């Protein structure tokens, strides 16, 4: 009987009978309700377990995501600075001449009649030339890095959002 167990425990504590106190308190605790979670707790755990990304989100993964975001941010910050720095390195005269040549080429091309394939070829050629220059490569790399990091972050967190 719980109240007897309680009285026995208190008596055992008073007299220093430790083993008796231990067993009596265990008996008294049979009446103490165990607190439980709300209804559907197991379902929620199982649903959360189903999300594969959830299993991968540990401390190392968080560090990778943080490092990726930092690198992406650094890349995006460095890109405009690199362009500005490039203007100091490259002769401004050459920049102006290139721009002028581009404008002239554009005007000639428009006069000759624009076609979508011609536009694509010229755009591709220009992008290719830009990409092989140091500044262009740097910009392209930074953009690719930022885009990759954004995709990694979305890939990791979107399934978790969907599940919750």
């Amino acid at each position: 009987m719980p109240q007897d167990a309680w009285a026995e425990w208190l008596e055992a504590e008073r007299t220093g009978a430790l083993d008796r106190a231990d067993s009596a308190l265990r008996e008294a605790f049979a009446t103490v309700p165990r607190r439980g979670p709300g209804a559907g707790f197991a379902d929620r755990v199982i649903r959360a377990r189903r999300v594969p990304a959830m299993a991968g989100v540990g401390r190392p993964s968080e560090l990778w995501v943080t490092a990726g975001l930092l690198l992406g941010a650094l890349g995006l910050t460095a890109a405009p600075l690199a362009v500005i720095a490039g203007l100091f390195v490259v002769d401004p005269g050459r920049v102006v001449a290139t721009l002028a040549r581009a404008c002239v080429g554009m005007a000639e091309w428009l006069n000759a009649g624009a076609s979508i394939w011609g536009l694509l070829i010229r755009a591709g050629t220009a992008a290719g030339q830009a990409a092989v220059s140091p500044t262009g490569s740097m910009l392209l790399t930074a953009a690719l890095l930022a885009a990759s990091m954004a995709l990694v972050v979305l890939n990791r967190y979107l399934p978790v959002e969907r599940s919750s």
Partner: protein
Amino acid sequence: MAERPFSSEQARLAGASDGEIAFRALDGSEPAARELVRRYERPVFNLIERLVQDRPVAEELAQDAFLKVFRSLHTFDPRLRLSAWILRIAHNTALDHLKRRRPVLVSLDEREDEDASSLADRVADPGPLPDRLLEQHRVGAILDAAVDRLRPAYREVIVLRYQEGLEYDEIARVTGRPIGTVKTFIHRARRALAEALKTPP
């Protein structure tokens, strides 16, 4: 309901041993995982809630604890008791949470309660002839309230020893304390509990 397709499997698993449940859950069986949660949701929640004393937070932490259990099931040594292993993860999860937030220490002497009467008086004077069930309920509720008034380390060992029925060495593994310290804590916690029941809160 999501559980319906697994009902027969679930019924079979209800009689399976802890080791079998753990093995099957590790093998990817969802009914086994569900059975594992069903078996240990109360002990895990009970321990965490006693430590953090915040029901919604305890529920979140209990869910985290189970996800950690599933992630590290491959490290479980089947020679040990699954309950002690799971409770250790629950203990660590609650402790991590408590370390992250500002600690709130509850002293036996500082705790205030709206009821001015002694807990012991309430037991000694059971009122107008309550039946046995009502009496058990009262005794349980009073002990339950008294446990909440203990300091967190004592609350934890009392719950592990007297509610979860763990042995001293298992409590030592769960809490990460030496077995001698655990014995001392349990002894002191029992005395503190007795004091809490004798003196007005």
